[in-house]
């Protein structure tokens, strides 16, 4: 039971990262590899600040701001230097590896100070792993609320329009460059914030902890879409949370079946590939089923 609760707890926290990724991946239609760098950036920033005596809230705020700066770098290369989107993200991600090493001073660091956010606000009095669930729900609720409000503003609609049809958006006078900056920066800010949370949940930061994070985020988004297709934007954000928990549960089941933990990334990639292919597989299955019925 504890394992399931721990898995759900991780699902909630990782869902925050997936919501950040959703902004670039689905709203802006921008494949952003920056997240593999901004995620550990948030983690190392938060751990370093907490180790230096700053509060967990300040640490998370600074992680969010640094994530925004990482997003700014990618957006700048993409919009101003006309570097292709994928490459711009990879360049920032690569550069951030050195930045993260600079911040941390070494490859990893444990969190030894007591001011961990998971131990505050009475969260430490909750049963084991429930602190992650409660904190995750609170942060998701805040981010979802703010995101839905933002997307319903004139500026938010302009960001959606930019991702949806840039030519139309530009012809309506929308500054599509600014909208891309906003989307990519906020997305990476949320991803870095999640990095700061995961580091506190795990009790350490590692410069390599971003590897594969984009797969985890995408899996949550895709599983949510497969389970709940054709839902309004506000509901879609909730489906990401469900997708994130389902993804974690699938991983847990696979590992419980006896697979080697070294194969975790391979298993993650296969799960994502299956989820991405599911609509095609489902369509072909139904087509074959219909043809079978007709031939009878």
């Amino acid at each position, binding site marked *: 039971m504890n394992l399931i609760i721990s898995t759900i707890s991780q699902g909630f926290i990782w869902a925050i990262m997936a919501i950040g990724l959703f902004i670039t991946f689905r709203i802006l239609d921008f494949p952003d590899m920056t997240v593999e760098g901004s995620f550990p950036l948030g983690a190392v920033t938060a751990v370093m600040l907490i180790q230096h005596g700053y509060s967990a809230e300040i640490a998370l705020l600074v992680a969010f701001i640094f994530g925004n700066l990482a997003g700014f770098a990618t957006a700048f290369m993409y919009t101003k230097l006309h570097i292709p989107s994928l490459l711009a993200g990879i360049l920032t991600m690569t550069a951030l590896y050195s930045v993260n090493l600079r911040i941390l001073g070494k490859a990893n660091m444990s969190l030894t100070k007591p001011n961990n956010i998971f131990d505050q606000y009475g969260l430490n009095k909750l049963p084991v792993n429930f602190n992650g669930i409660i904190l995750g729900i609170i942060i998701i609720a805040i981010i979802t609320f703010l995101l839905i*409000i*933002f997307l*319903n*503003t*004139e*500026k938010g*609609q*302009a960001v*959606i*329009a930019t991702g*949806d*049809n840039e*030519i*139309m*958006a*530009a*012809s*309506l*006078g*929308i*500054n599509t460059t600014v909208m891309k900056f906003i989307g990519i920066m906020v997305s990476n800010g949320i991803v870095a914030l999640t990095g700061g949370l995961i580091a506190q949940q795990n009790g350490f930061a590692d410069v390599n902890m971003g590897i594969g994070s984009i797969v985890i985020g995408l899996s949550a988004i895709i599983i949510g879409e497969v389970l709940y297709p054709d839902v309004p934007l506000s509901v879609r954000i909730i489906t990401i949370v469900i997708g994130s928990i389902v993804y974690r549960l699938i991983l847990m089941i696979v590992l419980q079946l006896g697979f080697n933990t070294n194969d975790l990334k391979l298993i993650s990639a296969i799960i994502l590939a299956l989820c991405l292919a599911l609509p095609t597989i489902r369509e072909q299955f139904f087509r074959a089923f219909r043809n079978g019925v007709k031939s009878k």
Partner: protein
Amino acid sequence: MKPLLEINNAVKTIYNDNQDLNILDGINLKIYPKDFIVVLGTNGAGKSTLLDAITGANKLSSGDIKLNDEDITHKNLAKRSHYISRVYQDPKLGTSPRMTVAENLLLAKRRGLPRRLRLRKLNDNMEKFKELTKDLPTLDNRLNTFTENLSGGQRQTLSFLMAIIQRPELLLLDEHTAALDPQTSQELMELTNKVILEKELTCLMVTHNLTEAIKYGNRLIVLKKGKVILDLDKDQKAALKEQDLLEYF
């Protein structure tokens, strides 16, 4: 009468096959208020480049463009969009597929205006949108339909409504009926003509359809190799036959 839009010696040069090629080659054009100008020309004559130059999507190599006597040559697309709206040939280019019809109309209602960090007023505008679409069988009662679920004709009608919902000083139609089936194309062209005449809009319409070119508008210009080779007024246009135009192609 003062021209609404004045294009002076517009040249657009591109580098192609190791040589400079003038897509627009010294175009001079005056568009007066309430003009409904039909633009004809073969592929590569410079029609779309001319529209791009007017909207600011593409900058001129030389020459200038004035709108209401103000030089807008160096103003970008976003700034010009407040005055100039455009409907593209491809129905997919003019709308946001993951937004509803009403959301698209609301987006277009603030064409060229700053997008602020304040809540959009969708519900406040629904009555206006219902009024706008009530006589259009293709869009009536579809305000909450996602645009990606509309047909090409419905999307193009929506694109047209988006272009005129906030009255443009100049409306540009870039073969906006060309991608539609004959009946839908005819319906949209009739709607276009009705709206332009009723609202007394100034319009520049590019078409390949000779029948449309003769039937609609009060002026006709023909472009060839980046130059205006024919500019006819309403009376001269009325005397034209389709065969007369064929010699320019």
